[in-house]
């Protein structure tokens, strides 16, 4: 059975860390620019402390990250970040086709065995799909796309 955690306490703690982070980085600006953010920092801090106190008095308990594989969502997230970081270097088309294929390859292994032939067919589908998005955005809607070394 999965372990249950005091989520009030954890949420309050996260809120408090964010409050302190924003308070620490608060710039020295004029009253008009800071009066509203100051009020919000106080509200966020008070809410966080209240949640921590609630966590001690009447805690809400639930399991955390208990759906499926944690490794899988973390790796997928890292691939998303890698994809975005690669765009300015490789260009939109090259990076998107590469990372799209990587994600498909990684995630598909949970459901079926990826053979060379199957992957080549997928690669064709990926190229067509990415080109479709590219043409719609760049040529039809004239929306600028991120640029890099290649296309």
């Amino acid at each position: 059975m999965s372990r249950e955690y005091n989520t009030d306490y954890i949420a309050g703690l996260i809120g408090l860390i964010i409050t302190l982070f924003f308070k620490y980085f608060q710039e020295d600006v004029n009253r008009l620019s800071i009066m509203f953010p100051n009020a919000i920092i106080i509200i966020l801090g008070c809410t966080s402390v209240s949640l921590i106190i609630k966590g001690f008095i009447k805690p809400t308990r639930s399991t955390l990250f208990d759906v499926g594989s944690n490794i899988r969502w973390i790796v997928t997230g890292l691939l998303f970040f890698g994809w975005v970081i690669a765009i300015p270097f490789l260009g939109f088309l090259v990076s998107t086709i590469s990372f799209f294929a990587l994600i498909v390859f990684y995630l598909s292994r949970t459901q079926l065995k990826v053979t060379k032939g199957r992957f080549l067919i997928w690669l064709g589908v990926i190229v067509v799909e990415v080109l479709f998005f590219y043409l719609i955005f760049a040529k039809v809607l004239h929306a600028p796309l991120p640029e890099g070394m290649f296309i």
Partner: protein
Amino acid sequence: MLFDAIGQLMQPVIILAIFAGVTAGLLVGAMPGLTATMALAVLLPFTFTLPPLLGLVALGAVYMGAIYGGSFAAILVNTPGTPSSIATAFEGWPLAKQGRALEAISVATISSAVGGIAGVLFLLLLSPPLARLSLKFGPAEYFWVAVLGLTLIASVSEQSLWKGWLGGALGMLIGTIGVAPIGGETRFIFELPVLQGGVEMIVALIGLFVLPELYMMAARGESALGAVDINSHRQASFWSAVKKVFSMPVNLIRSCIIGEIIAIIPGAGGNIANLVAYSEAKRASKTPEKFGTGTLEGLVATESSNNVTVAGSMVPLLTLGIPGAPPDAVILGVMLLHGLRPGIELFTTSGTLTYAFIISMGLAAIAMIPVGLYGGRLIYRVIFRTPYYFLVPTIALATILGSYAFRNSITDVVIMLILGTLGYILKQVGIAPAPIVLGLILGSIAEMGYVQAMLSGLAEPHPIIRLFVNPLSYILIVMILFSMAWPYITSVYRRLKNRPQQETESNHE
């Protein structure tokens, strides 16, 4: 004049423009990150060479289709296609997970069409008095409207009210990053110049709503929709949806009125209307506990109210020249381009053209029914049959494009990813994305209203008094107090109602 206008609309080319506009709007609105404003801005150059009526009709149809199109992504992938369909995701996505996506799309289509037609009727009948009311809104009233909106956090908090407030405050704080709206200095940029532009609402919206779902799909190893049984097509048929929508007339009328009132306030459009209408539907419901689990009541409220704002927000635009919502600014540009100046002349000298434009939006609302019902089924089939390992990167690609397209900034895409990952972690501890987004949207309106009110009261001994001088402020304050007290009032009422029952049961024992 009205009959002349109807006569002008009965041309094949106008009818074609309406259908083409609705289809184009639907496709753009269904893409997360592409808003109605962007759809109009992108299609604007195509209307330059068209005659004034044809250009305005096409843009009005695109606007109507885009607001409605946002519901597709909200229902099928839990991603509001536009900010106007945030609350649609609260009910549409749970319905889709129950295998009722087609039913949800049909109900959303009929509700949107009803909302669109209601907005046109409001515009035709109530333009002058509503325009006068909108003029009475000053900084203090904007501040109170934002506070009223923030009381909705109670409705959109999934687990605990405290966590909802924490999320709301966090959203408001994220909204303060960048240049101050008044004062002009940068705040919380953490010595990173790229943050000077702040966090765009659309970018945060995409990250907070989409990424957690993608992570969830990746963790589970299957699509959330792939594992459910599909409901029968009979449940999703046109007549079945019509019956369902009209079986809740009070909800429908209330949501349309809310949509109209919010639409006439300049700056507040469908993004606020759908949340307020959803919250009020929940408050008035006999089964509020079912909200968030896939109830049609919520879906009808949000989809009817947001489409009312399309024509509704034209009230201040056509009468005073004030765009009621951002997409209206684009339409104002087209009007000015063709020499049409907002004001009384628009309803007299150019009356035929103006009335034809207004009525064409009603026709666009009707055109949404065939386009939406067929288009919706097609999009649903594509999403349902796509394996999850293709769906995850495809949606990710759309989110990357959507976040980038807004300001052509790769920083926005990185911010979207960071917020989405943070949103997934916060969701695990019970802080839902909806209050964060609500705080982000309303925080900036509240700040602007608050600081402007303080500035206007500098000559007073206590500047804060400026927040309490207009009778409209009093009405809004009463509404806020009522809204905050409502959960407690209903809880006391239920306890009192159950007491005699419990006493009778204990006497029997």
